[in-house]
């Protein structure tokens, strides 16, 4: 696309636009959550909606996540298409039963007869010193449990198309947006997340990872914020003649193992970048998915750049030490080469 046609949106605006467009055409769509009406969402992703759709359909809730997420399940089963917000993914512990035992399983328990077409949007990620109860990604936690799709956009184009797809999906979708990609100034912002985003509605299909940068020497698999770290590391590595390929998973459930495997088959090397905790999560799954398919493709031991298995620290020095970064990816390449 040409510069002149460009219409850069932040992820926050892309999300709000997708929701608004669906609300205009489908009266069943409504939004529920804390501070999503007047405030427009703590992370801006419902801004402008209450002005257009009013307080019935853009519905502020009490701080009762079990109550209103459970209610969304009931409304969805009754023909509505709720979009609910869990303000921080970190809060899942107060309401997860409604999510993973009801939302995710009622379709199965009813033999497919109850549909639960709802979207649970929730923010993830650290990097701005919000400490251990407000900085987690928890990708692995959500993706591990069956019955819900889990999507993690890394840019505004995907964010809009995935929100539209999520709302139209007859299955429950957990939509995890990373705070540093929202385009809210106060959270800092990864500029690379604000990209051209068409005004008309469109969908981004779930289960399709994307090669966001082609390369020959190593595959860097990541998601959300990690994709931007990976792209920066790739640019850095290129300077020393390395050609990295970067794969944006885009959705964790379904997980596009084929694209990962094809890329690693080409490059022979794998680095997984994940801001979620190290063990028993995304990074292990990606590595296992490659080797269980074919052990012959790897030329070096795969590397992980992840958050360590520790609560997330507050102090900047510690948090920066803790989080994945482009430099750590470059280091991982170094270890891989050395090995």
């Amino acid at each position, binding site marked *: 696309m040409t510069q002149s046609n460009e219409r850069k949106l932040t992820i926050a605006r892309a999300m709000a636009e997708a929701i608004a467009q669906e609300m205009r055409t489908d009266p069943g769509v*409504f939004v529920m959550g804390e501070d999503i009406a007047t405030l427009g969402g703590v992370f801006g992703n419902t801004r402008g909606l209450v002005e257009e759709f009013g307080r*019935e*359909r853009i519905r502020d*809730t*009490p701080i*009762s*996540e*079990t*109550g*209103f*997420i*459970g*209610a*969304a*399940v*009931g*409304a*969805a*089963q*009754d*023909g*509505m298409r*709720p979009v609910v917000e869990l303000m921080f993914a970190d809060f899942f512990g107060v309401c997860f*039963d*409604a999510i993973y*035992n*009801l939302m995710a399983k*009622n*379709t*199965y*328990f*009813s*033999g*497919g*007869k*109850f*549909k*639960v*077409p709802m979207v649970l949007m929730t923010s993830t990620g650290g990097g701005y010193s919000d400490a251990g109860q407000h900085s987690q990604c928890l990708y692995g936690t959500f993706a591990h449990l*069956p*019955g819900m*799709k889990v999507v993690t956009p890394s840019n505004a184009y995907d964010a809009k198309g995935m929100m539209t797809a999520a709302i139209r*999906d*007859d*299955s429950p979708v957990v939509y995890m947006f990373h705070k540093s990609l929202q385009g809210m100034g106060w959270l800092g912002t990864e500029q690379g997340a604000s990209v051209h985003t068409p005004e008309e509605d469109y969908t981004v299909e779930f289960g399709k990872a994307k090669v966001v940068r082609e390369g020959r020497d190593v595959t860097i698999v990541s998601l959300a914020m990690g994709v931007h770290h990976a792209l920066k590391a790739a640019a850095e590595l290129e300077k020393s003649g390395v050609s990295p390929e970067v794969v944006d998973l885009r959705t964790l459930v379904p997980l596009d193992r084929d694209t990962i495997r094809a890329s690693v088959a080409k490059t022979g090397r794998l680095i997984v970048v994940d801001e979620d905790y190290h063990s028993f999560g995304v990074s292990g799954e990606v590595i296992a998915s490659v080797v269980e398919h074919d052990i012959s493709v790897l030329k070096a031991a795969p590397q992980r750049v992840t958050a360590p298995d520790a609560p997330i620290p507050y102090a900047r020095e510690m948090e920066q030490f803790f989080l994945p970064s482009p430099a750590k990816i470059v280091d991982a390449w170094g270890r891989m080469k050395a090995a």
Partner: protein
Amino acid sequence: MTPSKEQLHWMYETMVTSRRFEETIEKIYLEGKQPVFNMASGPIPGEMHLSNGQEPVAVGVCAHLEKGDIVTATHRPHHEAIAKGVDLNRMAAEIFGRATGLSGGRGGHMHLFDPEVNFACAGIIAQGMGPAVGAALSRKMQGKPGVAVAFIGEGAANQGAFHEAMNLAALWKLPFICVIEDNSWGISVAKKDSTAVARNDVRGAAYGVPGVYVEGNDPWKIFEAAGDAVARARAGEGPSLIEVETYRLAGHFMGDAEGYRPKGEKEALFARDPIPAMRKRLLDEGAADEAKLKELEARAEDRVSAAIDFARSSAAPAPEDALTEIFA
């Protein structure tokens, strides 16, 4: 509000249907589980929570509900399902884990779902509350009629979900009713050892919601209290909270040795079995004669045997169907 003759006949027949159904299930459940009781064995495996004794709550409330109204039930859902009109054949087949079951055997007895009559379950304590409140919200937002009832146990009223959902329903003035079946036990823990107040109707005050306690496991009184609440809900006046004194005649689940019951409790409960009591009162008050009651009882028996036959003669699910219907 007093039940009409027709309503009383329906209530009695439904109670008897539920009781006969469970008596039959109880027997079949033990097939293959003797002499060694292993839950995994027999034609009906898994946990089995009987509701016998609690039938008055289900019929007293559901007598006021239409097909389009919503009910969410618990781990102990038979009486409520039958009273709400869930297809008895497919329900039986589900309990037997057959392909013809409500969910093709995926859910079993704790997960009875029937969209035809807007019936759903949750095996997690108090987790039917949110979905019922949400269905009520859906009806209000769509301007469609309908009342949503969440049945829970008295033990469930100490769970956070109860509180959050009650507040939401009251705040949004939804056509929602919480019906607490106070059988005085949560597995082995007595109400007095789990609940800081003697009666949960007082908890209505925490939400500005009318609370009623109905004593005596009495179908007439339950019908009356539920009638008021349903009328309130249909008139757009908001939610209600009803706690009903009832009795669990069986153990928490089959296999429960019930060692926690005080001596004599079971005998006392059986002496107050609500089904013979209702039968007697129907006769006494002339609401039904012996012939009518026999007719109702016969119909109940017939429905139950038809359902059990249907279940028994249905095919087992294909094993690999375990992996279908995960997503819509």
